[in-house]
Each structure stands twice: as structure tokens, then as C-alpha cells.
């Protein structure tokens, strides 16, 4: 391998990259916009569940229950309907999430210990909202139940219901805030997209323009060519990572608990695998459109199965298996471990091994697949 050749290729790539202001803008604007906007949008906390209470009882207790529900910060009592039909119409119009029906004689039945039944109808088009929303409501009702017992019912000598309460402590992300969880993950996606698209488009563009023929007829070896194409984007990938980590600390106050060096070490390996894949795919594409389409498909599958938005544990077993082969999934796990949990390099060793194996397969494959003659 001739270092002078690789050096000439790297210099040329950088000269071309920085010649085009659009590239520089993309390198800076993309991380900033993605990291500032996406974490805000990708927020799974269900706030403001809109509840409509249909009260047929109009008793002191039903008012008390209504008041208690309205007082919950996550719930917004949007309307009080006169009939259940009216509440359902509101749901049709997407104005409410849950319709809670308080039956007539609610208070009387409760006091007479006749187990009145409240019925809640939940708008379940958005499953997440439906389940979290009804959980909030259940909690309020359970609490309400307990208080009623205390107030109205004579307590037995000993409490027949064992009062075991679970108190939660959220380790690693004590305030359960979404940015701490999402920002590192989005940073991974960013790094992946920038690296992948820059490298694959670059190689295929040379095919389109025809300059690649001039390289193919030169003594540049396949390995020198692939390294000459890979190293510039490897460096740019690490620049994006640096920019992303800066944004995470300045705007979100997220400082990795573990060492930044561990993140860079893993990212370096990760970029080798991702760029290897990008260059492998571009060996088979003839036009930028082709490679864009294929990259889009690959990226989408990688990202959706990466555990960024949905937890890997809740995937079906076959999908969980695929995450072992998904570089994005590995990096997302690793960056969350290091940033939130403060994991050390030793803790992430299994992932390092997997990534090294991927890079070790994809890079030689990219070199082999690149054709200097036809």
C-alpha cells in the first residue's frame, strides 16, 4: 500500500468537499437542526390526556371525583358532556381521548357498598396515548377508592388489603427526561446518515462524471482507492460527532457520564463499518439515484430496528435477533450506556467485538467488490 497515493486521494476529496459551500452547510446545519428539533418532537411522554366526563349522578362524590381528575397535571378535562353520545361525538372529532361515564346513583351505590361501575371509553388509534392515558386515570381512581374507604367505610380491625406500594427510583436518568435519552440516539443517526450518504454519493458521482475511469487506468490499488474514499468521510464523521456532543452539552446540558474517549473509540470503529457498507453498495450502483434509493432502504430498516424509538426488548424475537447484525442498534446501545450510565470501555466490549467483526467483513468486501476492469 502506497501512502503517497492514499494521501493524494484524501487531499483531493477534501479539496472537492470544501469547494462546495453546500457541503459545508450540510455538515453544520444538519447536526444543529436535527439535534435541536428532533428530540423535542420525538417525545413520548403523554401530556394532556383529554378527558370528557359524563356525569349522570351529579352528587357530591361525583363532583369530588371530577375535581380530582381535573387536578391531575397530565389530564385536561376538556368538556363535560350531557350524554354519552355527545362525548363519543367529541371523540369522533378527535377532540377527546377518553370518555369517562359516571353512572347515576354512583354515590349511593358506593356508600351502600354496591360496587358502582365507571366506564371509560378510550380513543385507541394512538396506542401509546390510549394505554398511558388510561393508566393515569386508573391511578386516580385507585387513589380515590382508597380515600373513600377511609372516609366512609368503617375500617376493619386489620386491613384486608395488604398495602404494598411500589416506589420507583429511576436510575441513570432520574428525571426521566427525554432529551437525555433521545439526543445521544439521534446523534448516532446523524453520524450514520452523514457518513453513509456522503461516501456513497461521492463514489457513484465519480462513476457518473467518468473521472473514475482515469483512476481505474492508473496504478491505484483497490485497497488504496477504498481507503482514499473512506478516510475523508471517516474524519468528517468524527467532526459531526464532535459538533453533536457540543450541542448536547450546550443546549441540553448532557455530559457523558462515561469517558468521551470511549465514545470516540467506538464511533471510529462504527464509521469503518458504516462507510465500508456504503462503499460496498456504491460498487454495485451506477447512478446516484440508485445508490440513494438503496441507502434510503438500508438506513430506514437499520433505524427502525435500532431501538432508537421503540425498545429492542419489546420487539418480536426475530426482530431482536436482527439487532445483533445492525450496527446502528449497537451504537445506540453503546452511546446510551456511556452517556447515561457511565459505562466504561470494558462494559461495551461485546459491542466493540461485534462492530470490529462487521468492519472486518464489510471493508474487505468493499475492496473486493470494487472493480478496476470489466
Amino acid at each position, binding site marked *: 500500500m502506497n501512502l503517497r497515493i492514499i494521501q493524494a486521494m484524501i487531499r483531493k476529496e477534501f*479539496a472537492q468537499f470544501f469547494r462546495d459551500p453546500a457541503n459545508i452547510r450540510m455538515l453544520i446545519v444538519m447536526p444543529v437542526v436535527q439535534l435541536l428539533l428532533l428530540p423535542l418532537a420525538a417525545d413520548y411522554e403523554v401530556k394532556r390526556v383529554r378527558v370528557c366526563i359524563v356525569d349522570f349522578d351529579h352528587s357530591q362524590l361525583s363532583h369530588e371525583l371530577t375535581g380530582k381528575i381535573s387536578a391531575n397535571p397530565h389530564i385536561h378535562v376538556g368538556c363535560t358532556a350531557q350524554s354519552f353520545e355527545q362525548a363519543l361525538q367529541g371523540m369522533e372529532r378527535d377532540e377527546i381521548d377518553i370518555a369517562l361515564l359516571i353512572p347515576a346513583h354512583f354515590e349511593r351505590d358506593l356508600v351502600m357498598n354496591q360496587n358502582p361501575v365507571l366506564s371509560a371509553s378510550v380513543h385507541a388509534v394512538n396506542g401509546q396515548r390510549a394505554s398511558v392515558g388510561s393508566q393515569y386515570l386508573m391511578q386516580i381512581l385507585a387513589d380515590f377508592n382508597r380515600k373513600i374507604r377511609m372516609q366512609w367505610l368503617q375500617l376493619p380491625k386489620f386491613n384486608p388489603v395488604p398495602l404494598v406500594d411500589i416506589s420507583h427510583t429511576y436510575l441513570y436518568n432520574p428525571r426521566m427526561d427525554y432529551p437525555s435519552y433521545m439526543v445521544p440516539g439521534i446523534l448516532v443517526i446523524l453520524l450514520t446518515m452523514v457518513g453513509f450518504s456522503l461516501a456513497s454519493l461521492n463514489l457513484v458521482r465519480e462513476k457518473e462524471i467518468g473521472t473514475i475511469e482515469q483512476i481505474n487506468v492508473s496504478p491505484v490499488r483497490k485497497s488504496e482507492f477504498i481507503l482514499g474514499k473512506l478516510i475523508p468521510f471517516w474524519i468528517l464523521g468524527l467532526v459531526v460527532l464532535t459538533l453533536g456532543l457540543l450541542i448536547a452539552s450546550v443546549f441540553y446540558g448532557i455530559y457523558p457520564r462515561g469517558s468521551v474517549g470511549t465514545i470516540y473509540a467506538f464511533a471510529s470503529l462504527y464509521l469503518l463499518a458504516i462507510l465500508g457498507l456504503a462503499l460496498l453498495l456504491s460498487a454495485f450502483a451506477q447512478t446516484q439515484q440508485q445508490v440513494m434509493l438503496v441507502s434510503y432502504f438500508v438506513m430506514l430498516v437499520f433505524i427502525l430496528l435500532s431501538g432508537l424509538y421503540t425498545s429492542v426488548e419489546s420487539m418480536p424475537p426475530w426482530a431482536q435477533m436482527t439487532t445483533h447484525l445492525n450496527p446502528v442498534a449497537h451504537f445506540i446501545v453503546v452511546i446510551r450506556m456511556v452517556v447515561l450510565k457511565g459505562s466504561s470501555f470494558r462494559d461495551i466490549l461485546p459491542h466493540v467485538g461485534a462492530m470490529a467483526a462487521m468492519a472486518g467483513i464489510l471493508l474487505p468486501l468493499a475492496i473486493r467488490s470494487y472493480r478496476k*476492469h470489466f
Partner: protein
Amino acid sequence: MKGIPVIRANELTRKFGAFVAVDRISFEVHPGELFGFLGANGAGKTTAMRMLSGLIRPTSGTASVLGYDVYRQSEAIKRSIGYMSQRFSLYEDLTIMENIRFYGGIYGLDSRLLAHRADEMLRQLDLELQRDQLVRSLPTGWRQKLAFAVAILHRPRLVFLDEPTGGVDPIVRREFWEWILNYVALGNTVFATTHYMDEAEYCSRLSVMVDGRLAAIGSPSELRRQYGVHDMEELFLNLATSSFT
């Protein structure tokens, strides 16, 4: 006087599916020759040249270039030749100097030698003041001259030129061929394709390709005598039309 042939092709053939692009051509090119490859568009000139420079594999037949086998030693061939492709081969978004540095670099020239040759070359091309200008901004004729200069930056003994003067005005074309003749005069060999028949007169020997086959080969004067024609245009028209009968 002729020495060992620089190029020796024997029954060289390339098929693309059922289409025979190059059909059993045999010829030799000797050191110090300016060898012309004439033919209409699609006659197989470029395919033949790409086989000889190691860019595509022949389907059958044999060929050696500078003593290297085109099947097994294509990378050794690439180290020793210069090549200027039909499509514009310089990077338009790089400056003249950046292009020179890149191509010099991938042929392994060290920076001192490269700087020396770049200076010499830019002086000859009269482009010293434009060295930091983007190639995009140069007129076509200059770009082609620059592309040729870059193709011989590593001083190859054999240079392949694929229609080097396409889209260039007659004055620059003449300058261009003088340049090529100068390079040949240094003892190098040049193999050039063209479909401008007047350019054939610059060649020491030439061959005419028609539909993938070699229809004629010889020096311009030999060919004129042999076919009883006044110029290459007439020869070419005779050969090309006779192929239809």
C-alpha cells in the same frame, strides 16, 4: 530498427452479449511510433483501446502491452502507460494545480519531482498565471491540452489517447498534434484514436477499423498507394461503404 513491439495484438476479440465490438484484430505497434486508430463512431476503437490499457478484459485472443499480458498483468500495464479518455478526465471542481497534484500523487511522484514537472508543464502550456483557477473555467481546447499534459505527467513510454481532439477548434487541434509529435520525438510511443481523417496524416502508421474489424493498416503513403486514393478521407469512405456490400 523496429525493436520489440510495444503493443502486440493477436486475434483480439471482445463481445458484449451477442454484439461483437472488436472482431479478431491483429496488429503490432513499435517503439517511437505515433499509431493512429481510425474509424467511425461505434467501430470498436475505444473498446480495443480499453482492452489494451487493462480497463476491460478481452473475450478471446491474446495481446501484450510493453511486454505485459493483458489478461494477467493488467495492473503492471497500468503502471507503465498514460491514458486520456474520451470523456473529460480532469476534475472540473478542482484547480489546475490540484488536478496535477492529484494525478501526480496517484502515480506515486514525490512532491519535489511533481513540483518541478508541474512548473515545466504550466510554462509550456502558458498556464502559469491560471494555476489556481478551476478547470471548469478553462476553454475546451486548453482543457484537452491540460488533460494530455496530466496524462504524461509520469512520463509513460506508451500513451493511449482516445479521441483527444473531440470538440476542439482546428488551430488548437494542430497545436495539440504538435505536442503529441514532440512527445513521440522523445522516443515514446503514442496510440491515438480519432475520427478526424485529416489528423491521420500526423501518424507514422495507422489502421482503419470498420465494424469491429481492421480493414486496413499501414503508413499513410502506403495506404494511399495501395488503395489508389488521394487522402485518408477517401480511403475511409471506400472502406466503410465497401463493408455494406
